[in-house]
């Protein structure tokens, strides 16, 4: 077995209540690494076609990366995947924290849950002792994420790490998150509802084992080099001081801050919800996850008034989703709303995207108090944003309609409200107004899990990465590739970034440090995999693995009917010109970018599916 891993996958059949421990499959690792790649392979083979994502036939996987738990900067990540109840296609979500590293220290790299329990359970892991326990008897079923963490620590010791769903997951909210370490979220794709449907409340873990490393002689010396590079990077001081919260001002300045349900990319109240506003009055301290030198997590507190709380702080996505997107400049409500979303276990991006859809429908007179049970949905009504967060998690009143996500809610309400759904493949678009950054529009259209900025995370055209573009792609692509308003070469960039980012999600590293800032690249990952795991992989090997994973994700979705027609954006973004700010007059030229992207991928231009040659090149010809 390779070094640097726990060495086993736990296979948990929730219907039978059985647990089996199997050694890792090294052939899968050589073709897909671990993390996102491993789950892509395993779940492709296990999830049947034509099933209800909330039925016992769905399979839920959790996996760490090959470097998770190592001393590489930001080696804190784990991945969760299943058929998504929000999009009905490939669902995948990632989080940092300490849970993933702890799982490896217990001797496990992944857990695969099949079937469904008839009564609520949780999985408790203490090294070799792995038990499915009664969640009702433990008093955690029906409880929120923080209560669950408190109760399990009381029961199993304060050094355990917990991963759980809150009430939103139990109530099968289609954008329920899976939380770990209290306020870290695998939020996208609604995988919390899959846990809820399996009546699996939590996975608590304590690992006292150690990871071996392949090259103990050179390990610390090389890790020291990586650490010094990360600390010397010009991004690091700002990350520690602001996390991602200072992005609000940058995005406002380039007209990319989704506002009023993406009617526009600038928001008059941006300063009130900015990173400076948070730091000035509410910041408690920065926080770091396992082996994290960027420390972009934070704790904040509101000390008085209706929004009093202390806990995890919002990042840019939540400032945008619950703030500008809803026309809401009341910062305390954004901070508290984010806290509630963590407590109940909700994806704040889809939460804000769904509430802002309803607000626009209200503004257009297509939703009334008769529909909402008297809830006032005026733009900027911060009390409504907070109130609906609870109503959605509990599926109370109009919250039950919104708990289905904006696409299904629009279908139910009708009256043309689907025009205001800012989603791709039924998942709400994140905090990037794509008319102000074309690469983000393409990335949202092509991502395997529906609208998603992270699958490709094509940030190289955002602000000042010309040198990196020159090195990664070649000078012939400048200046267009670095121009966020130009659609040219964005197909090439998004393809390259997707392959790289899924590889990074398969080794368990953060995108901060590997993509922005672009401090570490393929060559560094190859060195880390050699000294930590003893794997001899070249840059080219890792590129092909990334490409293989993306193609396998595409085949998973193709089995469910996804083709080029589904790689689309809301008409607002492709046909209506941006009304304000630097992108005024712009639309997303999606078709031209898609042509370039499919060509670069070796996918058929008409269907958007991998050609036979491409599949053969990647060793996937038998998966069709």
């Amino acid at each position, binding site marked *: 077995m390779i070094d640097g891993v726990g060495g086993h996958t736990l296979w948990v059949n929730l219907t039978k209540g059985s647990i089996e421990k199997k050694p890792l499959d090294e052939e899968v690792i050589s073709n897909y690494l671990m993390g996102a790649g491993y789950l892509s392979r395993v779940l492709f083979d296990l999830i049947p076609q034509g099933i209800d994502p909330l039925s016992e036939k769905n399979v839920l996987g959790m996996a760490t990366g090959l470097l998770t738990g190592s001393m590489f900067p930001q080696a804190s990540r784990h991945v969760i995947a299943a058929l998504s109840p929000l999009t009905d296609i490939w669902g995948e979500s990632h989080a940092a924290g300490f849970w993933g590293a702890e799982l490896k220290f217990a001797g496990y790299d992944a857990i695969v849950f099949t079937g469904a329990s008839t009564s609520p359970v949780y999985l408790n892991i203490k090294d070799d002792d792995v038990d499915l326990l009664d969640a009702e008897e433990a008093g955690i079923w029906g409880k929120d994420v923080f209560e669950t963490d408190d109760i399990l620590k009381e029961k199993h010791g304060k050094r355990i790490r917990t991963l759980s769903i809150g009430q939103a997951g139990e109530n099968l909210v289609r954008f329920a998150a899976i939380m770990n370490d209290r306020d870290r979220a695998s939020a996208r794709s609604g995988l919390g509802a899959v846990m809820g449907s399996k009546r699996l409340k939590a996975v608590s873990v304590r690992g006292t084992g150690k990871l071996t490393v392949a090259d103990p002689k050179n390990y610390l010396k090389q890790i020291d080099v990586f650490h010094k590079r990360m600390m010397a990077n010009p991004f690091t001081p700002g990350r520690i001081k602001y996390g991602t919260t200072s992005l609000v*001002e940058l995005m406002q300045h380039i007209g990319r801050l989704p506002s009023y349900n993406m009617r526009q990319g600038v928001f008059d109240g941006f300063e009130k919800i900015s990173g400076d506003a948070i730091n000035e009055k509410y910041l408690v301290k920065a926080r770091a996850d396992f082996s994290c030198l960027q420390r972009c997590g934070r704790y904040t507190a509101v000390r008085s008034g209706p929004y009093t709380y202390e806990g995890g702080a919002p990042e*840019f996505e939540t400032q945008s989703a619950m703030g500008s997107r809803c026309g809401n400049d009341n910062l305390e409500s954004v901070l508290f709303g984010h806290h509630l979303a963590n407590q109940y276990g909700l994806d704040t991006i889809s939460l804000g995207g769904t509430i802002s859809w309803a607000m626009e429908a209200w503004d257009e007179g297509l939703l009334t108090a008769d529909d909402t049970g008297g809830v006032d949905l005026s733009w900027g009504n911060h009390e409504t944003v907070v109130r609906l967060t609870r109503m959605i998690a509990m599926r109370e009143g109009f919250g039950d309609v919104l708990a289905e996500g904006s696409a299904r809610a629009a279908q139910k309400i009708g009256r043309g409200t689907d025009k205001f759904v800012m989603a791709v493949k039924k998942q709400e678009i994140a*905090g990037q107004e794509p008319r102000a950054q074309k690469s983000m529009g393409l990335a949202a259209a092509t991502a395997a899990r529906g609208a998603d900025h992270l699958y490709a995370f094509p940030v190289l055209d955002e602000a*000042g990465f010309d040198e990196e573009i020159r090195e990664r792609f070649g000078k012939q692509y400048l200046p267009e590739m670095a121009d966020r308003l130009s659609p040219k070469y964005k197909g090439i960039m998004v393809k390259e970034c997707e392959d790289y980012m899924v590889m990074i999600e398969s080794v368990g590293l953060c995108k901060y440090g590997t993509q922005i800032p672009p401090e570490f690249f393929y060559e560094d990952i190859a060195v880390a995999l050699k000294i930590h795991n003893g794997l001899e992989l070249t840059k080219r090997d890792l590129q092909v693995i990334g490409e293989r994973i993306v193609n396998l994700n595409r085949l998973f979705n193709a089995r469910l009917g996804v083709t080029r027609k589904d790689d689309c954006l809301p008409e607002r973004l492709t046909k209506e010109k941006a009304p304000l700010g630097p992108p005024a007059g712009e639309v997303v030229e999606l078709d031209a970018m898609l042509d370039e992207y499919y060509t670069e991928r070796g996918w058929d231009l008409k269907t958007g599916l991998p050609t036979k040659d491409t599949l053969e090149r990647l060793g996937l010809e038998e998966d069709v």
Partner: protein
Amino acid sequence: MAQVLVKFFATVREVTGVKSLELEAETVKELLQSLVMTYGDKFKDTVIDENTGNLKQFFSCMVNGKRIELLDGYDTVLKDKDSVALFPPVGGG
């Protein structure tokens, strides 16, 4: 000389102590020199690369929301009422 509004963000703002400043400059290069004169060594050490005299790596200067690399770089000519922004390394999603 054009009268422009310069906006400072995050760690650049910490050095200047103000959110914005109106000043006169013909080009971006002149504007940066003027800011060094106004805010002294602390600004220079934080923002300017001593070898090139340009902005340090990953710092970003935009004129009316457009990066100067896509205009005429440091020779970009400024006009009255232009809005110039100076960002420290920041980005992501």
